């Protein structure tokens, strides 16, 4: 892992001068940054706009970039998180973007009886969008991107312990809300019929 980071640091150093090296960094990180952005905004056009913004900002800020011992992707995620936050702040109803998430098959049987809780993707996205901003960012980076707590801390400018707390609180809130929603749905009043 260390050698991988060292190799990346050399590549980043060269990328400051060499466009082709920047191209190599782009090739390496474009898929995951685009995926992350697309998972948050749920619109191809907006995802493309924000991803472009992320990489142009990275290019323009590259001369000032200094390695902190974390992967270069942490810095890109940091830019992406800020760009997504800016995007939603500029929207009147940020949750509208979640409406496009398709519902799972109605009335489908439970997928796996052994898991503790039944979730659907739409419910989860809706509830995540309702979480406080910091919890929302930590939750999506942890569960959606599988990033390390330390990397999330680097992206959010927080300690690893603070990220743990955000994820803990976010998960507890989410579980509580999902269970409450499920209980309502299963009550005679909440049932579809």
């Amino acid at each position, binding site marked *: 892992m260390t050698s991988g980071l060292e*190799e990346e640091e*050399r*590549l980043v150093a*060269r990328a400051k001068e*060499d*466009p*082709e*090296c*920047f*191209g190599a960094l*782009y*090739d*390496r990180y*474009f*898929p*995951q940054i*685009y*995926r992350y952005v*697309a*998972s948050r905004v749920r619109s*191809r056009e907006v995802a*493309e706009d924000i*991803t*472009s913004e992320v*990489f*142009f900002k990275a*290019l323009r800020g590259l001369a000032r970039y200094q390695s902190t011992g974390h992967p270069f992707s942490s810095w890109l995620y940091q830019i992406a998180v800020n760009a997504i936050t800016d995007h939603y702040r500029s929207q009147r109803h940020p949750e509208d973007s979640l409406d496009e*998430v*398709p*519902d*799972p*098959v109605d009335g*489908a*049987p439970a*997928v*796996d009886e*052994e*898991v*503790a*809780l039944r*979730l*659907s*993707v*739409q419910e*989860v996205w809706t509830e995540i969008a309702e979480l406080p901003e910091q919890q929302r960012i930590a*939750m*999506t980076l*942890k*569960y*959606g991107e*599988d990033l*390390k*707590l330390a990397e999330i801390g680097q992206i959010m400018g927080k300690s690893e312990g603070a990220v*743990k707390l955000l*994820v*803990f609180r976010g*998960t*507890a809130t*989410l*579980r509580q809300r999902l269970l409450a929603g499920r209980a309502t749905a299963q009550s005679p009043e909440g049932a579809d019929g």
Partner: protein
Amino acid sequence: MAERFWRRRRRVEDELAAVFPESQDPDGRLLATARELRQLLTSVEIGEAEPHYRDHLRASLLAEHRARSSARTPRRHRVGSLFGVGLGLAGLAMLGVVLISVLVLPSGPRQVVVQASVQNNPRVAVNQAIDLSFNQPMVESSVDQGLRIQPALTVSTAWQGATRLSIRPRHQLVPNVAYEVTISRKAARAQDGATPLSNIVIPFGTAPLSATAVGYPPSLVAVSQVATVQQPTALQYAPDGQLLVLAASALTPGAASPASVPGAAGVYSLSSPAALLAPGAAAPQPSPDSQQLAYWSAAGSSTELEVVPLGGGGQPQVVASSPDSDPVASWVNDSTLLYSGGQGLLEANLDGQVTAVYPFVKLGPSGFFEAAPGLTALYAQPGGIPTVYDLGTGSSLQLTGIQGVPVFSPDGAQLAYVALSGGRESVVVASSTGGAPRAVVVAPAGVALTQLAFSPGGQYIAYVATTPGVGSQLGALALATGASHLISSLSGVSLPAWSPEGTAISLVQTTGGGSQVLTFQLSAPPGAGAAGAGAAASALDTASTLAQLQVSGGQGALTAIQGLLAPGAAIPTSSLLPGHFDRFYAISSTASSSGPNAYQVQLELLRDPTGGLPAQYLDETATVSVAGTTGELTALTLGQLTALPPGPMVISATTSSTAPGSVTFVLQFDADLDPATVGAQSVQLTQSGTQVSGVRVSYQASSRQMVITATGLGSGPLVLTVGAPLADVDHTLISPPYELSLPALPTSAPTAG
């Protein structure tokens, strides 16, 4: 690399455990929620970015980078202006050093950068060359030596001006394979000594089999030469897969001299070497059980209908005679023939006794007819008028605008023919018993369509398209969608014949040098053309649906998989990793010992290498219970998600039995094999635990298929193992060995994979 996967998984688990320690989450509910959230959100299907957008953004970024770099360059000139305002001697001396450095010392070599035509393209055509473009002149021999392709291929390289390299595989690429071209950093050496920063790795893939599903006609995988023939007039497969040609002579590769009959045409079996079955024959027809061959033979002023054993060696048996000029015969079953007998359409058994007449059917003076499979309908030209008879009711209908002879679908329900309308030819399909004809494909003006041939499954029609100035080429269309394309650019082709399992088309190509019989291996979807292998094909379809859902991922995947399960069946859905894979192979479908209608399907799911991560694979064995044409999953055995080892891999396996006590396995590999390692030393076949001797092994390089045949077998279960020393052309051994178990000898039809 597998360790890397598990290390990462452990890391994620450890971190989640740290977030939700037992002290704060005593019943583990939050941890369970966290695990499910992670699984749910990482499996959400996010569409790939548009390649055009991705490439455009990259180009824009690099353009801005270059512009910024060049904008920074003039700073150097400011040194001169500083000099102008006066510097101390020390400063002047330092400037001198800088100037000397800039003007005299050589700058470092420019790093090697390569662009590839196929880079990251997951749907490269199987006949496409791999073109590389370097940013500076390269040491060609060094690059050639350091070039590797995985799965291994035999390639030739051609350079243009030391910067452009074209890599051509000797045989066409295999569909649905993720390839990786690698040039080691040291080998990728420019003429000025520069190298790239790291090994050059160019991933790309060929279109998956799902792209050639029923809605799209199959594509060409490989071409092989079967025989050289003279004056061929008919080509067809017997139901057992034996290829027959009606010609003046036939010479199979490796045979010393052609089989021929002086002055007359004969029917030849193109097994190696070619064997003459019936001299002086016309209109040959193999029986449904592939045991006999019926044909017409001139005898004085009339023509005799004769039957000989298809395996050769027997005397012709005369069944009937006909005064018609162009009589036809068609098998009703293994002991009865339908034929044009002068007075009309007759049926006779092999002893020559007429068993039925069809007085309502009027044949033309030639006696020609075309019978639908199952004898539901028949086409004839009484008085030159194209007419279709319903043999059940005796009713008839006339066809208008028809060009040439129509063909019936394998189930006899449909009729396809070429029609001319508005000066353009089209392929028209109609119900055999009437109904509105439907133009499936309309050819461009001037292009003639002929020689239609239904695929054994009935989903596709092959045809010959003749374009002025180009010649005749093989095309295919999908009936469901009307999608069509030329299967090959080879011209001068005729007489297309589908193989019984629908995975190949054989045809004749005639050039100035003569005629040859070629076989085109096709990328047919699993089970699509597996005529006669209905239950095994249904099982394969069900298992393929499971694998496709795992590849697709998305919100509904696990739910849809649940819908494939038989009542009461439980499979470990949490380990199916939907959305984690890029492609799959449904390798084989064979009878299972667990029940009379149960089949075992071998699946392999693959994740392509990306971002420095190696390719991974997961083996699955699905047990499918088949009722009618519907399959249900009753059990699933999962292997471990593992880094894909280098070396050849079996991606399809079919089994069949052409004679009592015999078995034939056809294994399709993804890589070119080292011929020296192909043989009995790499193959082990056991029956009831005892090794079978006398196993024959052959390898067809152009299709990358290994054929393993054994005879004299009993009835016990068989286990085939193909392992070391089998290796690819890069000398990488097959690993792990491929294994296929059969509870008993297969039925005669191929149980396709």
